[in-house]
């Protein structure tokens, strides 16, 4: 089987394309649970954040947390959804970590609908809906291998997490490549963090991703889809989708029909495995929750939330891109914005510095600096001007930057002088170039004959002779000029 052809914008294998939708559950950053006032906290001693509602005790009644509604609206509006009148519904099924044997969720009328998420420099993925629901408790399985249910002797249930507010965000099946899937998850996470809805950490379980995968020949009807669970990292999302699509294509080509089922991704063996088939699936008997009433946010509340949203990652990337003359999906723009350091780059520009150089410096040297770098922007501004003005070469600037970062600031001129960096005057440079040509006649001959790569040896010789102080670009320019007049 040949490897699938894959580029960021296309994935194809034996002519088939993948059709992927993602369901993402996020834990909301509220102080208390969705329907009761026990703390919404991770890592406490088991069963210490419990109350009659959390435990599903007889006579207990749910009361909706206003902040959960506010955060659901925030993230919905950030995803360009419409906020609408919504109702709660009971999803009935038995499981020991489900204290009432039903989960209060939203079914017919979710709080947010019809939004979208633009992947940086790529496609727009539709968002069908986002709705509120309560989380389950956690079970630990004792006695089996690897803590799995299979072979276990018994299980222990902790209800601290039961009742924690979740929003489930369902995308439309617009995703066509593993890269797009990964980008969706990353961008969604960035938005959730930016609006304060969730800390969205996959590794802690505050963001969980399930993938719905099917395959088809382009333009044909959607194929049967499988739901993939247990995706614990962005990387897993990509790997699992890739595997599953190929699995389905293999079956289809062999004339087997793909069964609609839920499958479990095994990170260790790199495959998906059947968890349960549709026939085994429970009948959830959804009906409107009689213990709760309609939620109908008034237009004033919705507008207040909309206006209180911070600048979203896409807008920040656009601003940074414009200021630095880069594409919005350039790697430096993506990386720096994701780190939250875009504001810093713009601050350097406000101090009169060169935004483009600042972007490069920050990307390369500020990985450990966090959102508020300890280095004064004015200092960095000055350095950028020295490089752009030719006072320092790129290499020299890099070394000065390293000092500035290490010491949390510093005067670029003073540091440069300290290191003995001087601008190499043109005369000295020309002399070095002459020496290099003389020392490597073959390379020079090849270069003049048109072998562009041969210039490397000559530039290298000049760099060596100057102990790295020469400006590589200037050297190359000189050599080019020489060649053109030869």
């Amino acid at each position, binding site marked *: 089987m040949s490897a699938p052809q894959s580029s960021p914008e296309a994935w194809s294998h034996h002519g088939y394309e993948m059709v992927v939708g993602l369901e993402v559950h996020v834990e909301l950053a509220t102080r208390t649970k969705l329907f009761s006032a*026990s703390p919404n906290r991770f890592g406490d*001693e088991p*069963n210490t954040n419990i*109350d009659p509602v959390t*435990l599903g005790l007889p006579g207990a009644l749910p009361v909706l*947390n206003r902040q959960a509604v506010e955060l659901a609206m925030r993230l919905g509006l950030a995803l360009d959804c419409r906020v609408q009148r919504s109702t709660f519904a009971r999803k009935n099924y038995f499981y020991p970590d489900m204290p009432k044997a039903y989960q209060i969720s939203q079914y017919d009328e979710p709080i947010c609908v019809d939004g979208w998420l633009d992947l940086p420099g790529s496609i727009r993925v539709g968002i069908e809906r986002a709705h509120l629901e309560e989380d389950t408790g956690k079970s630990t399985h004792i006695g089996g291998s690897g803590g799995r249910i299979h072979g276990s002797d018994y*299980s*222990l249930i902790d209800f601290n997490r039961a009742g924690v507010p979740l929003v489930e965000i369902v995308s439309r099946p617009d995703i066509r490549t593993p890269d797009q899937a990964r980008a969706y998850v990353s961008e969604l996470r960035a938005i959730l963090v930016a609006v304060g809805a969730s800390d969205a950490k996959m590794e802690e379980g505050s963001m969980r991703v399930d993938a719905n995968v099917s395959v088809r020949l382009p333009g044909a009807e959607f194929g049967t889809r499988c739901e993939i669970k247990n995706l614990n990292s962005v990387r897993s999302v990509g790997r699992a989708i890739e595997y599953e699509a190929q699995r389905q294509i293999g079956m289809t080509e062999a004339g087997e029909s793909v069964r609609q089922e839920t499958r479990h991704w095994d990170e260790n063996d790199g495959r998906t495995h059947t968890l349960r088939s549709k026939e085994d699936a429970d009948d959830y008997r959804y009906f409107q929750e009689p213990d709760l*009433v309609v939620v109908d*946010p008034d237009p004033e509340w919705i507008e207040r939330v909309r206006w209180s949203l911070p600048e979203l990652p896409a807008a920040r990337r656009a601003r940074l891109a414009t200021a630095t003359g880069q594409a919005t999906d350039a790697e430096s723009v993506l990386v720096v914005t994701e780190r939250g350091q875009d504001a810093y780059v713009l601050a350097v520009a406000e101090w009169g510095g060169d935004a483009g150089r600042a972007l490069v410096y920050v990307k390369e040297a500020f990985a450990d600096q966090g959102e508020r770098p300890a280095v004064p922007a004015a200092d960095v501004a000055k350095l950028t001007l020295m490089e752009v003005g030719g006072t320092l070469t790129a290499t020299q600037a890099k070394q000065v930057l390293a000092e500035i970062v290490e010491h949390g600031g510093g005067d670029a001129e003073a540091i440069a002088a300290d290191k003995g960096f001087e601008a190499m005057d043109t005369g000295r440079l020309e002399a070095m170039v002459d020496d290099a040509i003389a020392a490597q006649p073959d390379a020079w001959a090849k270069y003049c004959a048109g072998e562009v790569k041969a210039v490397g040896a000559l530039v290298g010789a000049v760099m060596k002779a100057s102990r790295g102080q020469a400006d590589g670009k200037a050297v190359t320019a000189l050599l080019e000029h020489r060649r053109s007049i030869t």
Partner: protein
Amino acid sequence: MAVRVALLVVSDRITPEVVAKVAKLARLGLSDDELQQASHQLSDMLDHFADIDALDLDGVEPMTHPTPISNVMREDVEMECLDRDEVLAAAPAAEDGRFRVPPIIGLEE
């Protein structure tokens, strides 16, 4: 036009097979005799309840709540929790600060 024939046989509006599925959903164990009896009783009830089939309910909105209240919410403020020891003392089985159950086999997550 169909003529209604008096029901001389016991109705089979719900067959024992369907009752078995329903019992499974509800986690109730019924013997074969009980399944038969439940099928008869439930069918009999549903025969009575067929009176609403004749109503014209087009355009009628379902009524899930007696009163049109909306937007009941509470502030995001912590309140006192239950005492774990008291709660676990009332549990059928507990270990290590948690509720203990037999192996969780045959259930969907």
